C-alpha cells in the first residue's frame, strides 16, 4: 500500500472520533443516564484521539533511524517490502 503520508490516517481518525464524540451524543436515548453517557462519549473521543495524534506526530519526522542487528537485516531485507 502506498504511503499517503499523514492525510489519509488523519482524515479517517478525525472522522471516526468526531462521530463518536460529536454525533453519537445526539443519538443517545433520553433517560436518567443521558448526561453521564454523553460525558463518557466526549471524554473518550478526546482522550483516544489525542493519544493517537501524539503517536503519529512523534513519528512524522524521525530524527534518527532504527539500529538493527545483522541477523534482522538479513531477514527483513527480503521479507518485508
Amino acid at each position, binding site marked *: *500500500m502506498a*504511503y*499517503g*503520508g*499523514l492525510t*489519509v*490516517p488523519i482524515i479517517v481518525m478525525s472522522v471516526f472520533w468526531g462521530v463518536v464524540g460529536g454525533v453519537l451524543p445526539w443519538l443517545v436515548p433520553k433517560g436518567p*443516564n443521558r*448526561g*453521564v453517557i454523553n*460525558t*463518557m462519549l466526549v*471524554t*473518550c473521543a478526546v*482522550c*483516544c484521539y*489525542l*493519544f*493517537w495524534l*501524539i*503517536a*503519529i*506526530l*512523534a*513519528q*512524522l*519526522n*524521525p*530524527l*534518527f*533511524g*532504527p*539500529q*538493527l*542487528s*545483522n541477523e*534482522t*537485516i*538479513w531477514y*527483513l*531485507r*527480503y521479507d*518485508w*517490502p
Partner: protein
Amino acid sequence: LNPKVSAFQRRFVGEVRRCEEMEKTFTFLQQELRGAGRALGPCPEEPRAPLAREALRVQEQSEQLAQELREVSRNRASLRGRLRELRQYLHVLREGQRFTSLPAPLGSPPRARALSDREPILDPSLHQHLDRKINFVAGVIHPWRVSAFERLLWRACRGYLVASFVEMPEPMEDPATGETITWVIFLISYWGEQIGQKIRKISDCFHCHVYPYPESEASRADTMNGLHSQIQDLSVVLEETEQYLAQVLDKVVLALPTWRVQVQKMKAIYLVLNQCSFDVTEKCLIAEVWCPVRDLTQVQEALRQGSYKSGSSVECFVQRIPTSESPPTLIRTNKFTAGFQSIVDAYGVASYQEVNPAPYAIITFPFIFAIMFGDVGHGLLMFLFALWMVLCENSPSLRQASNEIWQTFFEGRYLILLMGAFSIYTGFIYNECFSKATVIFPSAWSVATMANHSSWSSAYLATHPSLTLDPNVTGVFRGPYPFGIDPIWSLATNHLNFLNSFKMKMSVVLGIVHMGFGVLLGVFNHVHFRQRHRLVLEFLPEMVFLLALFGYLVFLIFYKWIKFSAADSRLAPSILIHFIDMFLFTSNAGNLPLYRGQVPVQTVLVVLALASVPVLLLGTPLYLRCRRRAPRTGHHGPVATGDQEPLLEGQEAGNSVNATKEDVESGGHSPEAEHLDFAEIFMHQAIHTIEYCLGCVSNTASYLRLWALSLAHAQLSEVLWTMVMRNGFVRLSYAGGVVLVPVFAAFAVLTVAILLVMEGLSAFLHALRLHWVEFQNKFYVGAGYKLCPFAFAPDAGE
C-alpha cells in the same frame, strides 16, 4: 436531637434491651442447631418489623423453645451416661467370666484371646484349695493409667492380690473429654478386709469405675440378664428422646430466620427512635432529618401511609426549618457509576453542591491506567476477567463470597472492564501484544532500500553486528505508521532511545491537558456559587499562568515534531534547554532557535505569567474587602443557605429544636469579625497561589510517571518473553513440543502474577494518585460528608 440525655435514660431503652435478650436466645438456639449438625437456611421472604404484641409473641415462643431444648438435651445427656455405665458393667462381667469361670465355660473358649496381656493367673483348680474367702474388685480404667495402677497395687498389697487386665472389645466414649477410647477392664481378686479397702482407695485415686462383682456364677448370670434388659429399655427411651429432639430442632429451623430478621429490624428502629426528642407535651416525638428536595413528596407519602397502617388518629407531618449547618452530600449512583464515585469519595466526599469529578473520572481514570499498562494481550485478559464478573454479577455465589479481596475486585468490576478495554487500545498504539509487535500495516521503514543504497553485502553484514537505517536516504522512511508505533522499533536495538523520547513528551502533553481540564472544571464551581468575580480574578490568572508556560511547552513539542526532520537532525534544538533558558532569560549559543522571533515571544509569555501571580494572590481578597466596605443594601451572602419557605401552606417556618435564639438572629458579621475575615481570606489565598504556581511545575513533572510505568511494564513483559517463553521454542522437534507445555505454564503464571496483578495494582495506584493530587487539587475541595439514610443493613452473619 437529645444529646444531653444520657443513653440509659432514653425513652426506648427498655425495648432495645428486650431485643438484645431475644437475640441472646436466638444465638443459643443457633448454637444448639450447629451442635446437632443442622444448618440454618436464609430468610425466605422479607418480613416487616413486628408490632409490639407480635414482638411479645416472638419472645415468648423463642424462650419456650429454648427451654424445651435445654430440658431435652439434659435428659438425653443423662440417659446416655446411664447407658454407658450399664454397658461398661456388662463388659466387666463378661470379661471377668473368663478369669473366674470353671474349665467348662458357658460359651467362651478356654484358649486365651490375643487381646489379653496376661494369662489367667488364677487357675480354677486353685480355687478349691484355698480356704479363705476370695473377694473381687472389678472395674474399668483408662488405658494410660494401667501400668501405674498395677505397680501401685503390687507395691501396696504385695502378694495378697491377683490382678488381671483385659481390653474392652468395643471402644466407648470418655465422659470427660468426649473421645472414644478402648477402656481396660480389670479384675482384682484379694483376700483380707484391709487389702480390700486399700484396693478400693487406690482405684478411687485412679478415677476407675468400680462395679460390684457378684461371687457366684448364678448371680453373675442373673445380673447379666438384668443388665441386658435394662440396656434394651434404655436404648428405646434414648431413641425416642432423640426423635423428640429432632422435632424441636425442626421447629427452630423453620422459625428462627424470620425471627432474627424481625428482631434486627425492630432493634434498628428503636435505636433511631432513641435519637428523637419529646415534645413539650410529652405526647409526640420530634426528629430532625436531612432530606433531598426531590424526595420530599415521597417522604410525605410514606408518613401518611405509616400513620394509616398503625391506626393512629393523628398524622405525622414534615416541616422545613432553616439551619446554618452545612448539608450532607448525596450523589445518586447506579451499579455502573458507583465504583467510580467510590474512588473519588475515598479521597474526600464532595462539598455540598460542588462539581463532582466522578463522571469525568469514569473515562480518564481507566485511560491514564491504560497509558501505564498498554499491552493488547494483558488488556485482553483483564477485559475478559472483568466481563465474566459483569455477566455473572447476579449469581449469589459471586455476590456473597466471604473473601474480602475478592469482594473488592467484584465491586470494581466495571472499573476493571473499562481499564482492560482502554489497555487494549493503548496496546495497539504502543504496538505491544505480550511484548511482541504486530504488523497490521506494512512497516514504514524499508530495510531493502537502505541495504541497496549502502551496498550491504552478506560479507559486509557478517563483519558488522549492527547497522542503523538512515532516514535521510530517500525511500528508507516512507511516512508515519498510520496507527501506533512502527513495528520495526520492536526489532531495533535502540528502540528505547526513540520510545523514551516519545513517551516522555506524551506524558507531559497529556499531563498539561489533564491539569488544564481541572482548572476548567473550577469554572463550574464559580458559576454555580455565583462568585463571578472569581472567574476574572482566579480562573483567568490560573489559566494564563498554565498556558503561558506549559501550554507553550506543549506547543514547542508539537512544533518540533512537525518542523524538524532527519535532514537537520544534527542541529535539532533541545526543547528542555530552551525551556530552562526561557525562565532564566539567557540563551545558549549551541542551541538554535526553533522559529524566528522565539526570544521576544518567550519573554512576553514569561512576563505575562509572572504578572498573573499577583493578580491571583491579591485579586479576590481586595475585591471582597472593597465589597464589604460598600454600603450594604440587602446584599445576600454568596452561598445560599437552606430555604425558608414552609412546606405546607399556612404554617410558619419553625426553628430547630436545638437552636438557640442567638443562632437564629445573628445574620451579618460584626466589624471585628470583618477584619479577621480579611486576614483569613488573604492567608487562604496566599496559600492557594503558592500551591498552584509551584504545583504547576511539580505536577507536570509528576506526570512523567506515566512514562516510567509504561517503560517498566514493557521491559518486564519483554524479559518474560525472552527469558521464559522463548526457551520453549528452541528445539523444533517433538520433544520440543513436550517441553513447551511446562514452559508455557511458567510463562502464564508469571504473566498473571507479575504483569497483571502486580503491575495492574501499581498502575492503578499511580493513576489514582494522579487523579487525587494532580488533577483534583486544581478545583476540588472535598470537605463534605455523606448523607447516610436509615436503611436495614443486610444480615452479614452466617
